């Protein structure tokens, strides 16, 4: 069997992983990134909108600074974030945008003079300053006080991904694509690499490293309707969960994006609303300004998604064969704007829906979009539980997003966190030595081979992997969606426990030879159900509403009892529920909990006495 050694191993080759890889490579370390797909196909490339950084170059961003960005982020998180981390992020973001410009990102730039913009369907005029000409421009995004989102048309993620992958090629970072990590190599204290499966041949391969990073993105595919790419299936998370010692943070914090298209769930960017698009109901009337007079369509995502769902429940949804939806209207922005700055949106609507958004309304509904939760790390990106294991980007719970992240903050997080944590990894690697225990490596490879053999021979049973996966997805969809209740979550947990039993009995229908996609799906299924149980059980136990987590039976945000982060462990393989522990949401408090200025108003303060 092939064994590859590298100083730094990154599982994932999206923006966070490659940014960290570049940092370590520039410090002189060898780096290998493993990826299911060629790096540029990573889900980072699908982020259309932009990256938040308080450069304040646009006239609409005048007076912006990291303090304002920090405050927006903390409010957006509904005070669930780690404020020290949010501060690190807000301070470093402007420098990172400039660095990316230096490396080759074609950011849109300030064009001086008069131009027109739309807000809430009304037309306004702005005048960009002559002295700012050619500096990095920004656009408006939900939940922000200023225009702060740096962008490249509506292909920001794609453009930055190209630049980052170019930088990796220049710096000699190796990307082993079509390679899937399936188990961590670890002894309960230190992580020293992974066992991976080659997706060109199906063979197992060992990667040994002094430092290993999980940067494999979110796990939206455990839901049936998600904007996430098919590779965002939580596979890398399951490796960490299966160790029993690495906790997942805030798994119940799942973001639903207001504008997934119906029926294919593809995201159309928040930039549509940022640029003045409006939401309409069955009568083609606006409604967001009724619920949120000030921010209207531009309140944070959790708030907009919630009101959309509420409005549909009140009978104002548009009925369709794929369920109810609402309309997104960008017609008034005009052909030039729609085929220019919003070209990807135009292409998605015409190619996948047969809808022409210049003249027609776009069918949308809230759709699973982002995992705030993930591998819990400290502010240096070091995972809890195992030395030598790091995590960054959406895969991690670093935790600058708390219970809701702002549009444009996750794409910015990938590169900012990748840079900060990449430097910390380089520091860790300085003078670091590891012993590789060959017995342990052989045992782990043997264990993985035995799992594969059992799936092929059907030794454990003959459950159909796709049917069990669908049962897991359906349970989450029904019970752990935008609105949650005790009753719904209890049912959800019970259904997932049943799916867990079935997942242990999966057997392949095909012969399992070579790359075999059925085998790839089967290998991660049990771990995925464990992740789903962490989401559902964490949501059941959290008896409050905060950010994206909305309990109809506990509508208030409860800062007295729940200013905490959930840590979910899967301690023993035979467990049927995760073990939950809690830690304070933040140790540093710059902004004490208060009113967000949008969304719910019921707050149980930390000063309120228990009844």
């Amino acid at each position, binding site marked *: 069997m092939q064994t590859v050694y590298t100083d730094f191993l990154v599982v994932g080759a999206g923006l966070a992983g490659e940014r960290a890889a570049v940092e370590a490579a520039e410090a002189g370390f060898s780096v290998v990134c493993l990826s299911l*797909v060629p790096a540029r196909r990573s889900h980072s490339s699908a982020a259309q909108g932009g990256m938040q950084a308080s450069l304040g170059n646009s006239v609409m961003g005048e007076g912006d600074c990291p303090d304002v960005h920090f405050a927006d982020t903390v409010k957006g998180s509904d005070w669930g974030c780690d404020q020290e981390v949010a501060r690190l992020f807000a301070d470093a973001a402007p420098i990172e945008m400039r660095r990316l410009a230096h490396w080759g990102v074609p950011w849109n730039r300030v064009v001086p003079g008069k131009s027109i913009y739309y807000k809430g369907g009304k037309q306004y005029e702005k005048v960009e300053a002559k002295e700012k000409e050619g500096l990095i421009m920004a656009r408006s995004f939900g939940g922000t006080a200023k225009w702060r989102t740096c962008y490249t048309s509506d292909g920001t993620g*794609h453009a930055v991904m190209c630049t980052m992958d170019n930088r990796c090629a220049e710096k000699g970072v190796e990307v082993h694509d079509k390679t899937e990590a399936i188990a961590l190599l670890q002894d309960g204290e230190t992580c020293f690499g992974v066992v991976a499966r080659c997706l060109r041949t199906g063979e197992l391969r060992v990667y040994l490293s002094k430092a290993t990073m999980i940067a494999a993105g979110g796990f939206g595919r455990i839901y049936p309707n998600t904007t996430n790419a098919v590779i965002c299936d939580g596979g890398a998370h399951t490796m960490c969960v299966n160790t029993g010692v690495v906790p997942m943070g805030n798994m119940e914090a799942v973001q639903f994006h207001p504008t997934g298209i119906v029926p294919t769930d593809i995201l159309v960017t928040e930039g549509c609303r940022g640029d003045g698009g409006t939401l309409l109901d069955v009568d083609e009337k606006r409604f967001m300004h009724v619920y949120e007079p000030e921010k209207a369509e531009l309140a944070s995502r959790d708030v907009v998604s919630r009101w959309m769902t509420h409005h549909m429940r009140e009978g104002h949804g548009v009925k369709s064969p794929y369920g109810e939806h609402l309309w997104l209207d960008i017609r008034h922005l005009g052909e030039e704007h729609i085929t220019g700055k919003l070209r990807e949106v135009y292409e998605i609507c015409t*190619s996948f829906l047969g809808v022409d958004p210049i003249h027609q309304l776009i069918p949308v509904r809230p759709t699973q979009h982002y995992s705030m939760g993930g591998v819990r790390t400290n502010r240096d990106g070091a995972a809890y539980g195992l030395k030598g294991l790091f995590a960054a980007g959406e895969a991690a719970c670093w935790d600058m997003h708390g219970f809701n992240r702002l549009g444009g903050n996750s794409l910015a997080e990938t590169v900012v966190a990748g840079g900060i944590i990449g430097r910390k990894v380089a520091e860790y690697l300085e003078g670091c030595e590891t012993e590789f225990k060959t017995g342990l490596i052989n045992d782990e490879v043997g264990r993985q081979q035995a799992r594969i053999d059992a799936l092929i021979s059907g030794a454990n049973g003959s459950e159909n992997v796709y049917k069990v996966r669908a049962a897991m997805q359906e349970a989450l969809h029904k019970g752990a969606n935008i609105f949650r209740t005790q009753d719904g979550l209890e049912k959800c947990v019970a259904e997932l426990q049943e799916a867990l039993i079935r997942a242990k009995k999966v057997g392949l229908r095909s012969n399992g*030879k070579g*790359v075999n996609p059925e085998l790839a799906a089967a290998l991660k299924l049990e771990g995925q159900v464990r992740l789903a149980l962490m989401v559902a059980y964490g949501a059941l136990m959290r008896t409050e509403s905060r950010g994206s987590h909305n309990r109809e039976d506990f509508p208030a945000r409860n800062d007295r009892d729940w200013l905490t982060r959930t840590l979910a462990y899967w301690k023993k393989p035979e467990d049927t529920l995760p073990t939950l522990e809690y830690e304070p949401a933040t140790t540093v408090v710059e902004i004490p909990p208060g009113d967000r200025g949008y969304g719910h108003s019921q707050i149980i303060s930390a000063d309120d006495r228990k009844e």
Partner: protein
Amino acid sequence: MSRLLKLNIFRYNPEDELSLPHMQEFVLEETDSMTLFIALNRIREEQDPSLQFDFCCRAGICGSCGMVINGRPGLACHTKTRDLPGEITLLPLPVFKLVGDLSVDTGTWFREMYTKTESWIHTKRIFDPTALEERMDNKDAVAIYELERCVECGCCIAACGTARLREDFLGAASLNRVARFLIDPRDERTEHDYYEIIGNDMGIFGCMGLLACEDVCPKHLPLQNQLGFLRRKMGITSLKRLFRK
């Protein structure tokens, strides 16, 4: 009554000694708004779980799902079955190494291309974290992004007459990449540097001008213009080099 689609799909698993290259027929009932992404996943989940194909974003953004659809390279995810006849033939992209069935290895090919074209900004400037960013005309940024939209799906390579004839031909995606850096004011490479990379039959002078690359590009990149632009630029550079000698 919806159509019964007949899909003829290329099958071969190089890792299975019993597998031989052949075409296999699948029958599937068409549903509303069906794309080849939906159709192929249904076949895998309901009929043959060993069927290999590549999808990632399924939104026409990532370029994973290039394949030959009724004789024409294209992205499967944004191909609607209602735009196709009832009989659909799917083959893997040529030129790239076959992984199995409809899945090919584009990653290795494109990574080699980055090295050949040195697909990164060449500059002697050092980043100063305390300084304002270098200014750039927005028009330049827009023009660069226009070429950067390439998703490396490989359709232009698979459809290229020259690439089918000679393995070392760079192809439209690579030449477009060179053009992207050539127009970038941050890249300090001269036309002579670029000539070293593409001023030969493996590069711009190998193009026969058939231009299927532009016809099949799912992102509608202006490949024809880029090929013309580079050919003129490199033609002039080649003359200058003659006179210099």
